[in-house]
């Protein structure tokens, strides 16, 4: 069949039965909008539940006191909040340097085959089940030291964190025009200094976005913490001991048969979800509004045109 015949056939098809085709189109539109609604309803329900239950329990004492006896409804979850922030700090101390350096290696040093290989494995590792990292940290650190400790948790979470940072750093560095590098080399600046002082400065926005996203991801992780930091009822007493974190508290409390304990779980969920939403919203604000665009385009515009 020649091209013109095919075109004629399509045109005839599209000219016929216009009414029923418009009806189909409308129905599909309604179905598609229903899809969006179905996806948004759970989010709304989760937020409403967490806020409704959480607000009832949250008080100054809840946020600043140690937990009382299980199910008594006394005390608070201050040690879990402390634990979550300590975990974020320790994980970042391990994960951020490795992630950023790995991203630098792939974007600036590796030849294309090695770079592709490492990027591929970073992508694959990002999707590993988080519980596997928990098992690994348990075998590698907890069994060796003979006790549950914070470093094991930090190592497990940093394994989740560093591939995310490595990928975002790499993407951010790739958006910087080569003229930046060439200008640096033309001045006789060594490559390491060009990378650290010029490229990292220019790619700062992208890297910060990646770090914040990865922090938001690890702050809610539960499974690896069950087998590494275990949970406790006291304040932080050094990195060699067990500690509590918000997700662990929620998990433990939700399985208890007391209503008060479950209410504490909802309160902890509200604190956790507030931390995560603030992180996500600020990433969004950072990417969208400060840079006048969206996604990588926004990043690109900031790098090239933002430094007027």
């Amino acid at each position: 069949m020649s091209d013109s015949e095919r075109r004629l056939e399509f045109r005839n098809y599209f000219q016929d039965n216009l009414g029923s085709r418009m009806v189909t189109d409308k129905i599909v539109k309604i179905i598609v909008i229903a899809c969006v609604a179905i996806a948004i309803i759970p989010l709304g329900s989760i937020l409403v539940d967490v806020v409704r239950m959480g607000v009832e329990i949250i008080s100054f004492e809840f946020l600043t006191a140690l937990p009382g006896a299980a199910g008594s409804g006394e005390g608070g979850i201050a040690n879990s909040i402390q634990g979550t922030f300590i975990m974020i700090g320790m994980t970042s101390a391990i994960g951020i340097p490795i992630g950023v350096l790995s991203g630098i290696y792939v974007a600036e040093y590796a030849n294309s085959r090695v770079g592709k290989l490492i990027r591929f494995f970073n992508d694959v590792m990002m999707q590993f089940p988080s519980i596997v990292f928990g098992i690994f940290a348990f075998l590698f650190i907890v069994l060796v030291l003979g006790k549950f400790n914070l470093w094991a948790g930090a190592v497990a979470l940093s394994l989740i964190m560093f591939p995310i940072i490595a990928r975002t750093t790499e993407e951010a560095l790739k958006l910087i025009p080569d003229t930046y590098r060439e200008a640096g080399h033309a001045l006789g600046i060594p490559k390491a200094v060009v990378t650290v002082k010029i490229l990292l400065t220019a790619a700062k926005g992208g890297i910060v976005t990646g770090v914040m996203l990865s922090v938001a991801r690890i702050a809610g992780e539960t499974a690896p913490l069950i087998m590494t930091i275990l949970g406790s009822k006291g304040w932080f007493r050094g990195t060699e001991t067990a500690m509590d974190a918000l997700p662990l508290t929620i998990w433990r409390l939700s399985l208890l048969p007391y209503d008060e304990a479950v209410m504490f779980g909802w309160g902890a969920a509200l604190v956790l979800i507030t931390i995560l939403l603030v992180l996500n919203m600020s990433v969004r604000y950072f990417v969208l509004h400060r840079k006048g665009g969206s996604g990588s385009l926004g990043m690109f515009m900031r790098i090239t045109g933002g430094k007027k």
Partner: protein
Amino acid sequence: MSRDLLAKKRNFHWDSIFKITATCAGAFVLLIIVLIFGQLLSDSWLIWEKEGLAFVTGDRWNPVEGRESFGALPYIAGTLVTSLIALCIAVPLSIGIAMFLSEIAPTRIREPISFVVELLAAVPSIIYGLWGLFTFRIVFKDWFESPTHEALGEHIFLFRDAPFGLDILTASVVLAIMIIPTISAVSREILLAVPAIQREAAYMLGATKWEVFRMSVLPYAKSGLIGASILGLGRAVGETMAVTMLIGNAVGPKAFPFGFFQQGNSLASIIANEFNEASPVSLYFPALIGLGLILLFVSLGINVCAHLIIRRVTNAHEGGIKGF
């Protein structure tokens, strides 16, 4: 002159140190993957030695000392069944969302809607579990599971068990909600990557929006959408907390998934539940590590497939309106 040379030499020194450090950081991911596999294999070696391949195909789960017997099949099946049900629910919805965001929605509301959908991904697994356990389970049981059981329970064996709320279907539906953001975000990117000329050609011939999507966008984006779905499958396979709280945590032969309303178990959730109970010197412990190793292999296989498909799609290919 000599000072210049000295400066150059010193800089070169630092330069190579930096390069070596960066190379080490880049190689770290390869090292850690090998290390994880090695560690898991060596610590589960006892169970492979005792049970052999029967560990993968067996269905007993008896940690009592002296009578130990372990089989992973019910949990492998539980993982795959819950993930596949979740996928069947999530893929049509996600493609609908992606179609709305790329074809139908006015530009003004695209960003807010995709932001809201991505927020679903920001909610941690444990909070889905909490919500599922105290809110969704009850609503779902009263409004869907019980009526379905009453209507179909006698005729179709899938609906035979009396629904309790903590079962395979509840876990799968919550899992579906959790993977929707992943699949719809990737699908949206793939649909947006379809060249505008594809759509324009179909519009020019007088096609409606749905016909444009069906005849010129979908054939072009098909394999990419399959890749996105497999990526979602990989996500679902590794999800732990929400599934653990909702699946019912059966063990042994009765954990094998035969019906929607039956209590089951998945690889990740049995590990999360029983890990701290197992003593590292018994055979129970290597059995759980062995489950972790199987989970790692399942997830690795699925993810490698997904990445290869997505990569093949994003490298160009030919388009054209295909037949209707």
